[in-house]
C-alpha cells in the first residue's frame, strides 16, 4: 500500500523486535509470579482500600455529619475529589480515541494502560457523589424508570442528572472500547497458556481466532467507537463544569468553565498517565515499548493543556474585573487573597508555572523531571478544584454565614482510600492482561521499529527512506 511517509518519524519500538519477541515481552508479565515490588505495592493499595471501606461504612452508619462539610460549604472534599478523579479519567479516552482519529501512532504504546486507568478513575470518581447523597440506599432514585412513587421522575433539567448520564455513558462506553481492544490480546495470552489458565482466558477472549473478516470489523468498530468517544470525552467534563456554571453563585456562573474544565481534565489525566507509565515501564521492563519518545509526546500535551489552563485562570480574573459587577469581583478577590489564598497560589504554581519547564527538550525527555512534575501537576489540579469549590462557598452572599472548612479524618480516609482502590485495580490489571496493546504494536512494527527507521536502521542499511 503506498502512502505518504513523513521524512522524520520517531522510533516507537526499540530493541530490534520480532513479532514473537513482542508477544514474549508483553505477555510474560502476566505469566510470571509477581515480583516483590508488586506484592509490596499491592499490600499497600489493599490497606488503603480497607481504610476506604472502613471510612465509608462509618459515613453510612453515622451520616455525612461526620464530614467537615457544613451548611455554607456544602460541597467540599467530596466534590473536589469527584472532579479530580473524573479529570484523571480523561486521558485514557483522549489517547485512544482522539489520537486514533489523528493517526498518532505513539498512542499504541500507552493506550491500553491509559484506558484502564480511565475506567478505574471513573469508578473512584463515582464513589463521591453517591455517598454524598447521604441516604445511599436510595441512590437508585436518580435512575429514571417507571416506578411506584407517582411515578416520580428525575429532573431532566438539572445538570446533576446530566452528570449521571454523562458519567455512566462514559464509563460504559470506555469499558466497551477498552475490552474490545483487549480481546485479541487476551487470545494471545490464551494461546500461550495451559490447563485451567487457558480455560479462563478462553472465556474472556470470546473465541477470537484472528480471521481477516473479524479484524476488518474490529477495526471498523474501533474507529467508530473512537469517533463517538471523542465528543463524549469532551462532553463529560463540559457537563461536570455545568454543575457549577449553570448555578447562580458568583465565581461559578461563568461561560469559560466548559473549555477550561476540559483542558484541565486532559492536563491532569496526562499527568496521571505519566506517573503510572514511568513506574510501569520500569517495573515491567517495557522501556522499549514505552520509549522516551512516548514520554516526550505526552509532555508536549501537558505543556499545551497547562498553558490553556493558565490562560483560563487569567481570563477569569480579567473578566471579573472587567464585568464591573462587585459580587463577581469580590468572588475572585476572595479566591486569590481570601482565607484559602495558599490553595490559590499552590494551584497557580503547580499548574501554570511548573509545566512551563517542559519547553526545554532536555527536561521533556528526563524521566525524573517527568515523574516529579507529574506529581506536582496532580496536586495542582486537586487544588484547582478545591479552590473553585471551597473558596467560593466559604464567602457566600451573607457575611453572617461565612465559614471555614477543614476535612475530618473520615474525608481524608475516603480520599486516600480511593487512591488505594485505584492502585488496587491497576495492579491487578497489570497481572492479568497485557499492559501494552500487543496487536496494535505489531501492526506498527514495520513503520516504527528501530530496525526499519531511525539511526540504527540507516547504519544497517535497512532504512526505507
Amino acid at each position, binding site marked *: 500500500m503506498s502512502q505518504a511517509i513523513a521524512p522524520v518519524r520517531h522510533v516507537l519500538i526499540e530493541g530490534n523486535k520480532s513479532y514473537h519477541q513482542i508477544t514474549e515481552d508483553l505477555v510474560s508479565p502476566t505469566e510470571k509470579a509477581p515480583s516483590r515490588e508488586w506484592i509490596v505495592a499491592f499490600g499497600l493499595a489493599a490497606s488503603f482500600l480497607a481504610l476506604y471501606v472502613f471510612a465509608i461504612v462509618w459515613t453510612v452508619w453515622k451520616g455525612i455529619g461526620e464530614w467537615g462539610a457544613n451548611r455554607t460549604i456544602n460541597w467540599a472534599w467530596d466534590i473536589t475529589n469527584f472532579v479530580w478523579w473524573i479529570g484523571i479519567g480523561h486521558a485514557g479516552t483522549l489517547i485512544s480515541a482522539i489520537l486514533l482519529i489523528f493517526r498518532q501512532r505513539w498512542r499504541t504504546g500507552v493506550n491500553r494502560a491509559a484506558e484502564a486507568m480511565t475506567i478505574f478513575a471513573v469508578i473512584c470518581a463515582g464513589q463521591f457523589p453517591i455517598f454524598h447523597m447521604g441516604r445511599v440506599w436510595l441512590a437508585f432514585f436518580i435512575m429514571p424508570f417507571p416506578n411506584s412513587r407517582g411515578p416520580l421522575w428525575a429532573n431532566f*433539567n438539572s445538570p446533576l442528572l446530566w452528570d449521571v448520564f454523562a458519567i455512566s455513558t462514559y464509563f460504559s462506553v470506555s469499558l466497551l472500547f477498552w475490552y474490545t481492544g483487549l480481546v485479541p490480546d487476551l487470545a494471545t495470552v490464551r494461546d500461550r497458556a495451559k490447563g485451567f489458565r487457558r480455560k479462563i482466558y478462553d472465556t*474472556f477472549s470470546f473465541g477470537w481466532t484472528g480471521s481477516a473478516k473479524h479484524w476488518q470489523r474490529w477495526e471498523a468498530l474501533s474507529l*467508530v467507537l473512537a469517533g463517538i468517544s471523542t465528543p463524549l470525552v469532551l462532553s463529560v467534563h463540559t457537563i461536570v463544569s455545568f454543575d457549577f456554571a449553570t448555578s447562580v453563585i458568583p465565581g461559578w456562573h461563568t461561560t469559560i468553565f466548559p473549555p477550561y474544565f476540559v483542558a484541565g481534565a486532559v492536563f491532569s489525566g496526562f499527568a496521571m498517565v505519566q506517573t503510572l507509565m514511568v513506574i510501569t515501564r520500569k517495573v515491567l521492563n517495557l522501556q522499549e515499548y514505552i520509549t522516551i519518545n512516548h514520554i516526550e509526546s505526552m509532555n508536549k500535551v501537558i505543556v499545551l493543556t497547562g498553558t490553556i489552563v493558565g490562560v483560563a485562570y487569567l481570563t477569569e480574573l480579567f473578566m471579573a474585573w472587567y464585568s464591573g459587577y462587585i459580587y463577581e469581583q469580590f468572588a475572585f478577590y476572595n479566591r486569590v487573597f481570601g482565607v484559602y489564598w495558599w490553595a490559590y497560589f499552590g494551584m497557580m504554581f503547580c499548574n501554570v508555572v511548573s509545566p512551563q519547564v517542559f519547553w526545554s527538550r532536555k527536561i521533556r525527555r528526563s524521566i525524573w523531571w517527568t515523574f516529579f512534575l507529574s506529581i506536582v501537576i496532580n496536586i495542582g489540579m486537586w487544588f484547582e478544584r478545591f479552590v473553585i469549590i471551597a473558596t467560593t462557598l466559604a464567602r457566600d452572599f451573607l457575611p453572617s454565614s461565612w465559614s471555614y472548612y477543614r476535612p475530618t479524618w473520615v474525608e481524608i480516609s475516603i480520599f486516600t482510600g480511593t487512591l488505594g482502590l485505584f492502585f488496587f485495580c491497576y495492579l491487578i490489571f497489570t497481572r492479568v492482561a497485557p499492559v501494552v496493546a500487543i496487536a496494535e504494536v505489531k501492526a506498527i512494527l514495520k513503520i516504527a521499529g528501530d530496525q526499519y527507521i531511525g539511526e540504527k536502521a540507516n547504519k544497517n542499511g535497512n532504512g526505507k527512506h
Partner: protein
Amino acid sequence: MAAQSNKVLYGLYNDEEDLKSAVKVANAAHLDIMDVFTPFPVHGLDPLLGLKESRLHYLGFIYGAIGATFGFLTMSWIFTRDWPIMVGGKPYWSVPAFIPITFEMTVLFAAWGMTITFYTICGMWPGVKANTLDDRITDDKFCMAFDVTSASDADMDGIKGFFQKTNAAEVNIKTI
C-alpha cells in the same frame, strides 16, 4: 455448526508480506481460500481477499439515531404529559436542557448497539470455543486455510504445491 467438522489444510507464513503475495498467487490460480488468520490487522489484505467494507458503521448511525429519538421523546413525554414539573418558571418542554442527555443517549445506544452487533456477527461470546488452527497465529504466524473436506487427492496435492511455491513455513491438516 458445532456438529459439523471440516478438514482444513493450512499453511503458516512468517511474514505478512509473504502472506499477501501468496494470496495474490492463490487468486491467480483460482484457489478457493477458506479464511486467513493473522496476529494483527494486516493492511491491504481485505481487497486481495475480496472482502467488502464492513457495514457496521451504518448500523452505528441507526443505533445512535434510535438512542437520540428515544432519549428526547422520553424526556419530552415525561415533562409535558406524565409528570410536568415547574422548575423556576421555565417552560415544561425546555428543549435546550434536554440536549446533554439526548447526546449521551445517542452515544450510549450507538456504542452498545455496535459492540453487541460486532460480537454477534463474528459469533464471539464468553464461552465460545475458539476453533484456532494453530496457537502461534495470535503470536507471529500468518495463516491461510483451505477447506479440503471433500477435496480429491489431486486437489490436495495442488494446494500443497501452492504452499511450497509461496514459501509457507509449515503446512498442516487439522479437523475443526
